[in-house]
């Protein structure tokens, strides 16, 4: 789950990571009063799920309340293009924060690393820059340090990570506690990414989180009661959002024309690949999961068909726990409830495949023996359509 900067900063505050004085605002009046309360130059930052907000024109400085109000008037409700997200996103909220007197900026992130099977602490002394660009231009300015999951981020680990990135030695003692607090926030919120870019060292020596990018582990949301309300799918693809609400594993794919429904992630991906090999373009990834019941099959069909680009649907089920007859019944239910105008090819194998095939005989669905045959058939039918 992606968080907005202002939400991430609420987490940071809870774990005593210093953040700039500030408030989130939804109206021009709120921006005006927040600016007045801060009482010095502020920065106004549009709250969207994307980086590169400065380049998109969603970050502005204001010296006075009037100036802030004018900017807010312009930005609130405006839709801007964010290159990093490759999307037009609407600015619904502004984070109003004191502008910091920046002496140094560094980049700090903690994230789960698959290679080391650890959380890693990433430090770059080139703060404010995109980490991938730094990795190419000055790799010596970056350190990546695995964190022992049982000990957590110890003082020496944090310190050594800063030394390794070539950080100013005189600033280490005051930066280590901030890194430890960040780690506590990361673990405490079940984050899979906590990125502070920049971490600002101010003219008067304070260490403050300037920005924050934060991803929460969806699998851990059950125990993050306070964070559940932070979820906001308004920027997501509407079909994906609807599938998510119904608890269906669905990913919409750009430029596709064949809807894909299968059981098991690997099989569904392989089905997508087969459709491509057969000359079609997969329009989605949809995994009905193990042991799916008729209702979820019907639901899945409805989700896939709600994409107007879909010219045909391919069901590919290899039954293990999932039973072919149960899937067939779900398809029948779906056909009855929905006004289906595109061809559907169904390939059933494994547990109760024969029973499923028998059920589907009464319909005008096209059966297939193998995945390859199914892919070829649906592409042919959909193109003909």
């Amino acid at each position, binding site marked *: 789950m992606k968080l907005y900067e202002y939400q991430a900063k609420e987490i940071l505050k809870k774990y005593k990571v210093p953040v700039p004085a500030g408030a989130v605002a939804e109206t021009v009046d709120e921006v005006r009063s927040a600016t007045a309360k801060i009482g010095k130059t502020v920065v106004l930052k549009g709250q969207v799920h994307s980086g590169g907000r400065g380049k998109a024109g969603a970050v502005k400085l204001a010296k006075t309340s009037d100036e802030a109000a004018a900017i807010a008037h312009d930005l609130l409700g405006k839709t801007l293009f964010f290159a990093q997200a490759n999307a037009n996103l609407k600015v619904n909220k502004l984070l109003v924060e004191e502008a910091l007197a920046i002496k140094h900026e560094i980049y700090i992130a903690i994230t789960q690393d698959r290679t080391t099977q650890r959380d890693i602490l990433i430090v770059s002394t080139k703060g404010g820059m995109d980490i991938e660009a730094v990795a190419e231009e000055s790799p010596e300015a970056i350190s990546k340090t695995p964190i022992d999951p049982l000990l957590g981020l110890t003082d020496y680990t944090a310190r050594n990570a800063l030394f390794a990135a070539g950080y100013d030695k005189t600033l280490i003692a005051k930066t280590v506690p901030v890194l430890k607090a960040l780690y506590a926030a990361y673990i405490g919120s079940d984050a899979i990414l906590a990125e502070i870019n920049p971490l600002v060292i101010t003219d008067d020596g304070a260490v403050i989180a300037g920005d924050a990018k934060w991803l929460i582990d969806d699998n851990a949301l059950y*125990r993050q009661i306070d964070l559940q309300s932070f979820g906001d799918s308004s920027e997501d693809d509407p079909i994906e959002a609807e599938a998510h609400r119904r608890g269906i594993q669905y990913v919409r794919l750009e430029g596709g024309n064949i809807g894909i429904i299968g059981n098991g992630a690997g099989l569904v991906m392989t089905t997508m690949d087969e459709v491509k090999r057969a000359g079609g373009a997969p329009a989605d990834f949809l995994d009905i999961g193990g042991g799916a019941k008729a209702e979820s099959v019907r639901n899945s069909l409805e989700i896939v068909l709600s994409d107007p680009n879909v010219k045909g649907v391919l069901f590919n089920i290899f039954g293990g726990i999932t039973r072919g007859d149960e899937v067939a019944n779900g398809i029948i239910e779906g056909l009855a409830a929905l006004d289906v105008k595109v061809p559907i090819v169904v390939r059933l194998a494994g*547990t109760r495949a024969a029973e499923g095939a028998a059920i589907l005989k009464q319909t005008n669905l096209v059966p297939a023996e193998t995945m390859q045959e199914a892919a070829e058939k649906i592409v042919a039918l959909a193109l003909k359509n």
Partner: protein
Amino acid sequence: MSILIDKSTKVIVQGITGNAGIFHTTLMLDYGTLVVGGVSPGKGGQKVIDGRVPIFDTVEEAKKATGATATCIFVPARFAADAVLEAADAGIDLIVCITEGIPGHDELVFANVVRQKGARLVGPNCPGLLTVGQANIGIIPDNIFIPGPIGVVSRSGTLTYESVDALTRAGLGQTTCVGIGGDPFIGTRFIDVLPLFEADPETKAVVMCGEVGGSDEEIAAEYIKTMTKPVIGFIAGLTAPPGKRMGHAGAIISGTSGTPQAKVDALKAAGVAVAESPSQIPGLVKLALGL
């Protein structure tokens, strides 16, 4: 011979009294698996499945009473980490965790603990493993297997079944099939399974099914260069877009990392015959074995 499990492996099931636990334990028993007990805290002393399986309150008790060396975990995601830790602490050697949806932080913790205890974890979020004609720990449907010389290892469940089914239809039987799981953090990776197949005299060739995300296939490719046995590979997700999680928590292309092409290239460079479709797998196996 076989790898990891055989008909003498004594198995307990944690979370046995849930629906999935009862259902799959019955299938495991029917296949001949030596399921010697179950664990369900508070239900110790009862028996399930027509009195065939005694229940214990703790893994420690179950191990003491039965001599079990393996466990199969079916408990819900929020209790699964604790179940893995309990099994490791009790000295279980092989911990198979079927459960899906465990928080990543919990996985990092228990993977470390299991390693420290010298135990082996398969999964989580995996279908388990099956040694043909001997034992089945997990949820793999057993009726698609026939005995033979092929070892199978895969990150995906149903894709494995598809591949095994294709092998079986082509008359190519299997030794052991290991579903290592689709999460980014799993206890047993390709690199951990391949040496076991390499050392198993009954296995003559290995089928390895990977998918987008991570670099476990690339790491495995380095090892494959040193293997004497042929490996036939398949990578799912050539059409998966970057930045999107494809069902499995681990199936995601992040930036330049985890792309399917890098995996295919690495495998080919290691001499692996990479199938473009599961249907090609049997042919490539026959070619490799000179059949």
